[in-house]
């Protein structure tokens, strides 16, 4: 298994190229280009802010910032796994014609989406300055949190991309799963809104910690609770090891099903 990781590393040049390809293709022939990375979450934020603060009378100070802190890591997670679902199948031609470690396809999405994620932090900070929310030194933790998020997402992406080769209808299920996951994660509502009697179940959702940490350091400007950090690290290690293990176990079979 470690050999496989080493091999993956030896293909880093290809990984870099695939990431560049992803980014180029996404913004090719669009007038606004990279601006979309920033506009997209901003517009979603505007819609959600209007809905929640005006229509549903959700009373919270700086709700827009609160929302964005959760929405950006969530977008990264959901986009990565929904793209990863078809990443092997859509590269079937290449997989059939030339030897490449197959994990490189879902992994390249992890990186290309991360570039978008980092870029979309720019409008968040601009907005904070405009609205007048203070940026605290705790934001220095963001790189660690991003790495954490990346490993968690990578594990799930590897698992799903491989699973989808064997069970094609997973493509349809993943959208539903993502939607449900969105609502059970405190993104549009704060952690405190979770009903006490269900708290136990909600706490099983690793995204509570992984995404919650972003809100802690950016919105609340404080170092997250130690249990939050521990849980999120634990979740990402488990996710990555399990996802990679499943992928590695089934990698040789992929060629026969693709």
């Amino acid at each position, binding site marked *: 298994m470690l050999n496989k990781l080493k091999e993956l590393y030896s293909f880093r040049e290809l990984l870099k190229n695939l990431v560049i390809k992803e980014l180029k293709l996404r913004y090719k022939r669009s007038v606004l280009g990279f601006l979309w990375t920033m506009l997209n979450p901003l517009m979603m934020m505007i819609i959600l802010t209007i809905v929640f603060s005006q229509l549903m009378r959700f009373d919270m100070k700086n709700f827009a910032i609160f929302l964005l802190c959760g929405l950006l890591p969530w977008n990264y997670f959901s986009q990565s796994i929904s793209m990863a679902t078809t990443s092997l199948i859509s590269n079937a031609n290449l997989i059939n014609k*030339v030897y490449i470690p197959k994990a490189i396809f879902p992994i390249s999405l992890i990186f290309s989406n991360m570039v978008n994620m980092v870029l979309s932090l720019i409008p968040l900070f601009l907005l904070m300055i405009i609205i007048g929310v203070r940026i605290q030194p705790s934001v220095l933790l963001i790189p660690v949190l991003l790495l954490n998020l990346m490993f968690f997402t990578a594990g799930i992406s590897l698992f799903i991309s491989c699973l989808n080769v064997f069970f094609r209808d997973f493509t349809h299920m993943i959208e539903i799963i993502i939607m449900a996951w969105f609502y059970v994660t405190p993104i549009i509502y704060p952690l405190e809104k979770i009903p006490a009697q269900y708290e136990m179940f909600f706490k099983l959702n690793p995204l509570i910690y992984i995404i919650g940490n972003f809100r802690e350091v950016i919105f609340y400007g404080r170092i997250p609770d130690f249990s939050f950090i521990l849980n999120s690290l634990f979740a990402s290690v488990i996710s990555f090891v399990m996802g990679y293990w499943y992928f590695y176990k089934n990698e040789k079979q992929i060629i026969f099903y693709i």
Partner: protein
Amino acid sequence: MPDNAAISIHNVSVKYKLIHERSLTLKETAINFLKGKRDKYEYLWALKGINMSVKKGETIGIIGSNGSGKSTLLKVIAKIVDPSDGTIRHNGMLSAMIELGAGFNPELTGEENIYLNGAILGLSKSTIRRKFGEIVEFAELEKFIDIPVKNYSSGMYMRLGFALSTAVDPDILIIDEILAVGDESFQKKCFKKLNEFKQKGRTIIIVSHDLNSIERMCDKAYLIRDGNLVSEGYPQDVIHFYRSLISKGEIDISNVPSRQGSGDVTIKDVKFYSSSGIETDSFNTGDMLRVRIEYYASKKIDKPVFGVAIHSENWVHINGPNTKLYGLDIDFIQGAGALEYTIHSLTLLEGGYYFTVAIFDYTCTQPYDYWDKCLKFNVSNGNIKERYGIFYMPSEWKKI
């Protein structure tokens, strides 16, 4: 593994799981699991106990009909498919672009694709940068390198693919059925490049239906049949054996496709008729033979040339008439249409004969569609008593 071996394949088998009533979806799997139903499957052995040893600097050719397992063997050599059994070892760097330009992304420009595909083939960025000029020059794409590949012609696409594959300069080069593409001058260039490779002592593995180029290029040939290695040795001998299997009917001619061409015009159907207009593929010596060729031109094609050819069972080329030589100028074709070729007296002796149909451009160099020996008809002697040779010439004997 001896030092002078480039690839050694030991007892390699590959089995595919052939699943009947396969549950392709999670839903079906779950339902079947609850019902206690299992997937019905059987194993198909694509390769059975193959042993091969390729020496460094050798050029080898792998031949066989469709479904014989030769592509699977190539994929095993290229590490794309892992053998179910046995071992394979490589000595040296491998470039296995089984299909030219397989990794091209149509939206990216030629230049961007060179970098992306160079990386797929394992080149570092600095190496690609160093070889960039050479690749572009070889592919003759200087003017087009910054337009998206989707706007390339199929020839340009192939040229770029070949230029990239060889720019890798690998120790072992694997080529699947590419020598049939591109125009004649580019083909010559490819052969020249491959010869340079040979001279540098590199190992080349070719899979092709084009037996002539296998014979010309290779030092050694292997014949694969039903997953077994049935013959190996000098290309002439192996190819001769292969042809004898085909002519004995042990290998179905329909599995030996030698169809090529740009596809702008396609041959839809070819039928043989007797003098009374009945469709048949059995004739007597001296009969009239009428061939009806139906085609479809997807766009307006100026001055096409239709041609046919007859080969004997041991591949002797008997004739090769075409409309241009005959003096029938066809201004243009568009859409569906048909053509008739009539042999007034079929002066062939008893035996089976292969029939080739092709549609070319006016220069007769670029095929639109080319069915090489894809059809067969049989001739019986009828009233003619001659037995030797392949030809009957209307004649008489007289003692004087």
